[in-house]
C-alpha cells in the first residue's frame, strides 16, 4: 500500500487531511463493496464445488461450507473428463499463439522493413479487417472452414479450424508493424554489413528488440484463445475434440445427469489458468489497457 498525499485530484488534499475519519470510513466501505461485488461470486463458485449435493441445493445457503469435499475437483477432472477438455483447450491455445506469432511477425516484418511492391495495398487489406465485426462473418467463415477454397480441406473438428483463422489477426499486424517501424535503420544496416540475411536480421536483431510487444501479443492471444466460445462451438462439433467452454455448456445442458458440484468444479478449473495469467502478468495486461486510453 502506498500513500501519496501530494497527488492532486478532484478532492483537495486539504479536505483529506481535515477529514481523515470520513476518508477511512469511505475507503472501508469501498473495499467491502468491491469485495462483495467482484470477489464474492468467485468465492461462491470455489466453495460451492466443495459442498455436498444436499447443502448446495439447500434453500438456506451457507457462506462457509458445512460439508467439505475437495475430492469433487478430482472427480470432475476424471469422470466429467474436465481434464481431457482442459488439455484440449491448452493445446488449442498454444497452437493459436504459435501460429499468430509465426505468421503475423513474419508478415509485419516484411511489411515494415522489406517494403515490397504493393506492400501498402496488402497492409491496407489486412487493417481493413479491423473494422469488420468478426461475428458478422460467422456464417461465411463457417462455410469456408468446411471446404477451404482451392485446397478443398474440411477443417471441422480439427485444431486447424481455430489455428488458421486465428492467425489472420489484423490487430497483431498493426501493433507489430508499428513497433518494427520504430527500430532504427542503423542497427539493421550494421547487421547487414556483417552479412546477415533477411531472416538472420529478423531472428537475431528485430525479435530480441521486440520482446515487450511480443509479450503483449502472446498474452492477448493466449487469453483470447482460452476464452473463445462461439467459433469453437461451430467448428468443434465432436464432443471428443471440444474445448472447455463448449464442453461445459454441453455438460450444463444435461443437468440432472451431471452432479452440479462437479460442474461448478469444472467452472473453477476453466478459470484457474486465466486467473494465474492475470496475477502473473497483471502489470502488462493493465498497462496495455491504460496505454489504449492515452491516445487522446
Amino acid at each position, binding site marked *: *500500500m502506498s*500513500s*501519496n498525499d501530494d*497527488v*492532486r*485530484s*478532484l*478532492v483537495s488534499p486539504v479536505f483529506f487531511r481535515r477529514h481523515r475519519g470520513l476518508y477511512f470510513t469511505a*475507503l472501508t466501505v469501498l473495499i467491502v463493496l*468491491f469485495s462483495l461485488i*467482484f470477489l464474492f*461470486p468467485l468465492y*461462491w*463458485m470455489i466453495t460451492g464445488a466443495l459442498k455436498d449435493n444436499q447443502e448446495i441445493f439447500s*434453500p438456506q445457503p451457507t457462506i462457509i461450507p458445512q460439508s467439505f469435499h475437495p475430492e469433487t475437483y478430482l472427480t470432475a477432472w476424471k469422470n466429467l473428463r474436465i481434464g481431457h477438455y482442459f488439455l484440449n483447450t491448452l493445446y488449442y491455445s498454444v497452437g493459436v499463439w504459435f501460429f499468430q506469432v509465426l*505468421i503475423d511477425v513474419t*508478415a*509485419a516484418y*516484411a*511489411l515494415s522493413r*522489406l517494403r*515490397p*511492391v504493393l*506492400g501498402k495495398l496488402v497492409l491496407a*487489406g*489486412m487493417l481493413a479487417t*479491423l473494422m*469488420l465485426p468478426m*461475428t*458478422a*462473418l460467422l*456464417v*461465411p467463415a463457417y*462455410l*469456408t472452414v468446411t471446404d*477451404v*477454397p482451392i485446397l478443398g480441406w474440411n477443417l471441422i473438428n480439427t485444431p486447424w479450424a481455430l489455428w488458421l*483463422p486465428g*492467425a*489472420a489477426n*489484423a490487430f497483431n499486424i498493426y501493433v507489430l508493424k508499428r513497433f518494427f517501424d520504430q527500430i532504427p535503420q542503423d542497427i539493421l544496416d550494421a547487421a547487414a554489413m556483417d552479412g546477415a540475411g*533477411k531472416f538472420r536480421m*529478423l531472428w537475431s536483431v528485430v525479435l530480441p528488440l521486440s520482446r515487450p510487444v511480443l509479450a503483449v501479443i502472446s498474452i492477448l492471444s493466449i487469453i483470447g484463445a482460452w*476464452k473463445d*466460445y*462461439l467459433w469453437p462451438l461451430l467448428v468443434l462439433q465432436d464432443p471428443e475434440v471440444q474445448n472447455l*467452454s463448449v464442453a*461445459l*455448456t454441453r455438460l450444463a445442458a444435461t443437468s440432472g445427469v451431471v452432479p452440479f458440484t462437479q460442474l461448478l468444479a469444472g467452472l473453477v478449473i*476453466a*478459470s484457474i489458468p*486465466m*486467473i494465474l*495469467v*492475470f496475477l502473473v502478468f497483471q502489470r502488462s495486461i*493493465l498497462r496495455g489497457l491504460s496505454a489504449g*486510453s*492515452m*491516445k*487522446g
Partner: protein
Amino acid sequence: MGKSLATRVRDNLTAYGFMAAGIAVFALFSWYPLVRGVILSFQQVNFVTDPEWVGLANFKAIFDDPLFWTAWKNTLVFTGIALLLGYVVPFALAVLINEVRHAKGFFRVAVYLPVMLPPIVVVLLWKYFYDPGNGLFNAILKGVHLPTLQWHQSSSTAMLSLVLVSTWANMGGALIMYLAALQNIPGELYEAAEMEGASIWQRLRHVTIPQMRFILLVLLLLQIVATMQVFIEPFQLTGVTNTDTITVMVLIYRYAFAVNYDFGMAAAMSVLLFIVLGVFSALYLRLTRDEA
C-alpha cells in the same frame, strides 16, 4: 544508388516469401468469407445442388419474419440498458477510486478479475445465482425480506438479468481505461478551479468530464459495437427460442444453425448487422486515428 533489376526482383520475392502465410490466412479466412457473405445473402444454398441466385428474396424473407423486428428491438433495448449501466457505473466508480489514496492495486485487480474469466464460466455461474429456487440472489432478497424475482425466467426481468451479467463481466476494462485517463488530468486544473471557488460537483462537471471527453467518446463507440453483438448471455441464459431476449446475433445463429438451417437468411441478416456496426467502427477508427 539504384539497385539492379535482378536484385529488386529477388528482394521482392524474399519479402513476399515472408508474407506468404500471412496473405494466405487473410485471403482464405477474412477476405474470402467477407465476399462470400455478401454473395450468400443473395443466394439459396442447400449443399446438394449448386447455389441458386434468388435476388433479394432472403432480405424479403427476413423482413417478413416478425422475429427480425423483435431481435432488433431486443438488441437496441439491451444496448440501451447496457449503456445506462455499463457506461455510467464504471465512470462513477473510476472517479471514486481515483480519489482513494490506498489499496489502489486491490481495486484494479478486483474489478478486472471477472474480465479474465471465460465468458461461459461467467454465464453458467450467474445462471446458478439467478436460479429462482435455490439461487444466491433470491436467498439474499429473502434474507432482507424483499420479494424474490424470477430473474432471467420472467419476461419482465429477463433483459435486465442479461445486462447485469454482461456488465459485471465487462466493466473492468472500461474502468481501468477511465482510471488511466483520470490520472492524466493535470492537477493544476483542479487547483485553479478550486481557487475560483468551484465546488466538487462543479469541478467534476467543468474539469473532469471535459478533460475525459475523448476517452468517453471512444468507449461509447466501442461499447455500442460490442453490446450490439451480444450473444453468449441470451444464448445460454434464455436460449434461441425465447422471443423476449432473442438478439440479432442469436437470430443469425438460429437462422443458420438451430431452427431454419437457412444460410442465405443468416447471411442477409449478417450483412445488415455488418452495415450498422460498420458505421460505428468507421467513426471509432477515424476518431482514434485523428487523435493518435
